[in-house]
């Protein structure tokens, strides 16, 4: 019998639909991915390429538009709201770039770490013991009663890591956890991350745009324009979206429709100007 991989993703498509403007933004355009149990992989790619979106789907925080996503023996794309909440509660630990998204700022570190265990109904004594152990492992045993605002950036992310692991998830997802840290502190956090990944045998996926960070992992996957780099999806996405409307994100990134991209020379500079409220893109030959 063929041994199943821990994560299996096929033809994953995610289109964001803006309720105000009715513009549809394709974030993922057909992802195919397999991850083995216990693996520590990193996802790299330019800003806006869909890395976060992929993590959100794996974390059960947003619904895929189409495709097949399985984590362990759970098919996530079939889950409803409540089921997804239970999935998050039982199986996933997350660590985000923004420290304020990882910890409740008004609670001391220890209570933050205890929170996921409370959700699972772990008895008090056990909860306290586990939380202390975890905090010891990330080197914060003396700071347990402190609030996040009293810690340094690296310490906060370490506390966030402890929280993400508190309920012993099978899957650990991290979205640029080192993004706000200096390189030294980032490296430190990474060491903790790898150690814990090993000692708990957790499958871990980390998003980063830093090749150095990525190089510390078992495997690097690159995402460009919502696709795993060098891979062409079987299904054409363009049929799903309006061919003549494009979306500009808040960084100014534009994704041109495929039928235009096919006609132009890519990897080349273009001139952008604005006239009477119209944006003009010019390519000089």
């Amino acid at each position, binding site marked *: 019998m063929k041994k199943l991989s821990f994560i299996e993703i096929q033809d994953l498509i995610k289109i964001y639909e803006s309720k105000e403007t009715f513009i549809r933004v394709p974030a993922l355009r057909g992802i195919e991915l397999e991850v083995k149990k216990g693996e520590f992989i990193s996802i790299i790619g330019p800003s806006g390429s869909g890395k976060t979106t992929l993590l959100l789907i794996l*974390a059960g*925080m947003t619904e895929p538009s189409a495709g097949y996503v399985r984590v362990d023996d759970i098919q996530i794309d079939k889950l409803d*709201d*409540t089921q997804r*909440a*239970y*999935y*998050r*509660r*039982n199986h*996933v630990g*997350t660590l985000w770039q*923004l*420290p*304020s*998204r*990882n*910890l*409740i*700022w*008004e*609670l001391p570190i220890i*209570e933050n770490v*205890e*929170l*996921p265990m*409370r*959700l699972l*109904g772990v008895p008090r004594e056990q909860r306290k013991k586990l939380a202390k152990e975890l905090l010891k492992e990330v080197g914060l045993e003396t700071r347990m009663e402190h609030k996040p*605002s*009293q*810690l*340094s*950036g690296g310490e906060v992310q370490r506390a966030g890591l402890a*929280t993400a692991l508190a309920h012993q998830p099978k899957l650990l997802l991290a979205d640029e956890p080192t993004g*706000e840290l200096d390189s030294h502190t980032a490296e430190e956090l990474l060491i903790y991350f790898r150690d814990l990944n090993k000692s708990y045998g957790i499958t871990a996926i980390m998003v980063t745009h830093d090749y150095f960070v990525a190089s510390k992992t078992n495997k690097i996957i690159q995402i460009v324009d919502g696709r795993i780099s060098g891979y062409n999806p079987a299904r054409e996405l363009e049929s799903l979206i309006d061919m003549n409307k494009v979306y500009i994100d808040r960084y100014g990134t534009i994704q041109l429709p495929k039928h235009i991209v096919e006609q132009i020379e890519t990897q080349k500079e273009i001139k952008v100007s604005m006239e009477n409220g119209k944006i003009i893109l010019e390519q000089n030959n």
Partner: protein
Amino acid sequence: MINPIDETKARKVFLKSLFIITRSFYYRFFQYSKVKQKIEKNKNIKYLFGVLLSIVFIWLIPFLLLLDFLLILFLPSLHIFKPMFKAGWKFNLITTVGVILAVSIISQYVFFIYSYQYQAFELYLEDEPRTFIQAQIDSVHIEPSYTQTYLIDRIADVTIQEMNLTNNILQRDLFFKRGTFTSTYDPIAKQTYLPNLPLVGLTDRLSLFLSNHLTQGRFPENFGEVLVFLSSNFYNHSTIRVNSTINLYIPISLLKQASLSEPQAQTEVTVTGIVISDNLTDFSVIGSDKGIPFDIFLNLYEGNAVLSPWTIAARILSSIQLTYGFASIYENLFYDIGTIDTFNLDGEISKLKELAINLKDSYLQMGGYSGVDINSYLLTAIEEFKDEYNLYQIFMFAFLAPIIILTLILTVYAANLVRKKRERQLTILSERGTTKIEIGSYLALESLIFGIIALFLGIALGIPVSALLTKSSGFLSFGNQTSRLQIKIPSLSQALFGSLLVILIIQTFNVITLLKTRSIEDYGKVEKTLPSFYRYYVDIIFISTGGILWVIYQLPILSGFRDKTTKSIGIPAMIILLFGIVLLIQRLLPIFSKSVLKLTQIPSDKLKKKLRLDIFSLGIKEITRYQSSFVRSSVILSLSFAIVVSAIVVPASYQKFNIDGAYYDLGADIVIENFPIENKFLIEEIENITEIQSTCIVKYAALSDISGDYAITHAILGIDLNKFAETAFFREDFVDHSLKQLLSLLKEDTRVIAQEDEIKTINRGVGDSLIMGYRAYNESRRGSDGSPFYRSNISVEIVGLFKYWPILVKDISTTNTLSILNHFVANISIFNKIELSPLEIKDYLLIKVNQKEDIEEITNKIKTIAGSNVENVNSKIFVREGSARSSILYSAINSTLIMSFTINSLIIALYASVQLIERSREIATMKAIGVSKSQLLLLFLSEYATLLIFSTIMGLLSGLFSSWMLMNIITINRSIPPFIMKFPMFYIVLVGLILLLTAFIGALIPSLTATNKNIGTDLRQSS
């Protein structure tokens, strides 16, 4: 003393008011379908509608509570309760403060209104002795036996029983009265005169009362014996003493003069006792704490009478020739004031009207008496009370409604300020795998806890404040002892009921918004534009809606419905317009801050000062940067200041309007109506009172004529030119130029000045002459038909114009009806040229009292000289200082002020602290680059100072506008004399300063803590 209130009445009242809320709702919808058939058709819908509304009102609360309960009980969220509560209580507390305020205002309002309404009518009657219903049966042959009194009383008794009013009318008293006069010698004036001295026959209770209160002598027992009831003044001016005999005459002709000289019928009686009315205790009545002055009880106009037991008096009466034993019988019915339901005044009014009709009917049907008049003084009192009470309610409503809206805005605003932080917590909770239902359940539990806290704290806060308010005696002073706070089960439950509804609505709203899906993306956004509601032109919509409503309210067609439209259209229009204007003027905030900025950028020589100015201008620049948040708090600040300003201006203007109105109706400080102006001796005696500055005689008559289809009336007020200006009340705006100038034109008898609008409608003007036709009277010209009346006319010349004239002009006729009324003022000597029957001319004596003298005291002095026809301006003023009536007026104002102070300091403190938390990074950066603590403080305070100054100015302007509107609403039923706005600058400035101070302290505390914070933690804290 006020009767203690029994609980059953209270409970009844509570249920009733629930019913009334429901009923008044559907009446609002159905009152216009007054056609009978339509009502029949609508009956079912009406019924359904009522039931539906009751369900909504009575069941919404239990429903929301049940929902809360279910969420908490069956979907436990207890496992996350502890950490979430620990993390969130601070934020909840901020919202709870708003809710506490709202609850305390509601409970204040309810407690106060209840306490007031329980006692209001009794308090109102404090100054009104005539609280009974009097049946007057004219031309009854008086029998010298008590069977007659028994039979007549029986008729009233049966009627009362039929109407089930036996418990309401606890006492009835009968007497008869016949107008007689006597002749006596005045030892002071040294002349004989003929005072009125009516003959009164008493029933047992009245006899007993008087025999217990004799001043001299004994009570009459035998035929021909009488008791004399008179004032001490009369006593001094006559030779009537115990044991003296006096003659009683009856007048024969209608005319005073004719009859006085030759009495035609008479009898002789012996005085056995004397009662001096001045110090007689009041006649006590069952069901009332205070009694009734006996002269008022007997309806004596001049306060004097001869009295005897019924049988004796009846025989005296029949012994006077030409009376044939006929007199009027009076029955006074005393209604137990305590049983009057002040919560259902309309019901009481119709009950009293019905009683009057039934009584009249019964006297006719059962006794055969046709000349029956029912004088329901009580009914008049209730009707007047209703008008007055309506006015108070308008006051309370007009001020408290915006205040409650303001607290709700504050609550929502506070909730919004902390929402981001709350949402962050809840997002993390949800990302860690908490289901929506668990979060909802937690939020419900949490809001229940804070709701209960808010409920109890709010009511606990409301009780002392309303206790204080009940004592309101003036502007922010609390010395009134007449009314006291009454907290009873119904008021408590209504306060709980109302508060619970508000809390549940706020909390439900809060939970729903918090449960919405959140996106973490918009952290730390800076809003550079106006708040989003400006995008929909909310301000313009408000102003146009309010404006349209205002125009509708002012429509002449609706003038008949003002009672109803004031609350439903007038005040809402005012409130909507006020909100609209306040919102609109916020658009000026950036312009304002920019111009302040320019002012601060004037180059300065001193370097130190320059730096300070730079920091200041930086602070002002921030206002444009954080425009949205600034505008939000500026709206609230301007609004509360506007409300405060109108809370000062409106009562002051109203008080002035009230006093002016009283003076306008009366004419002077003190006025004696039907004054015998020929009695030079009397005028002299009055003028001799040292506290009196001057007196002036005024005559009034209306000359009526018919010309073609038109009935024309020329109302003429003849005044004493030399004394009018210094004696009478007059306001500069009543005439175009000066009063003196105008009066100097009237030297000749036939010159008049006219009302300017009226004279235009008959196409006349200054310089024109006018012929007034009228029915003249001359006794010596009796023609062949025997009538002394004939047609005559007088030609006058119009020499000037006026707008308003006290006593004379109550209504200006400008419409084209078939009757024309024109008003004129002339020299008093014009009446020498007009031959009218003396009965058609009204004579007044106007009296001006020296400044700072007590008008009341002097009135009493004059009464002892001139009888009881003396009226003073004080008794005509609605809201006198220290009265129970002023208490409610001032409590509305004081409550508004107190609440505004609280809201202002809270809002700015809240706003400042949240702003400073949001900007903690910025603050830390500034500190890091070396900005000192004091500079930082200056920076914040300059921001708040600019904000405060702006909102104060805008609040003042919009406050003045809304005051003007409110004055229009209050005075809409009375346009003459027009109201004048009063601006008590001292109070406005005082309150403005208090507001600024409280707000500034509110801003200072968080600013100080922010400047003292550690840089490290702030820089590290992510936004």
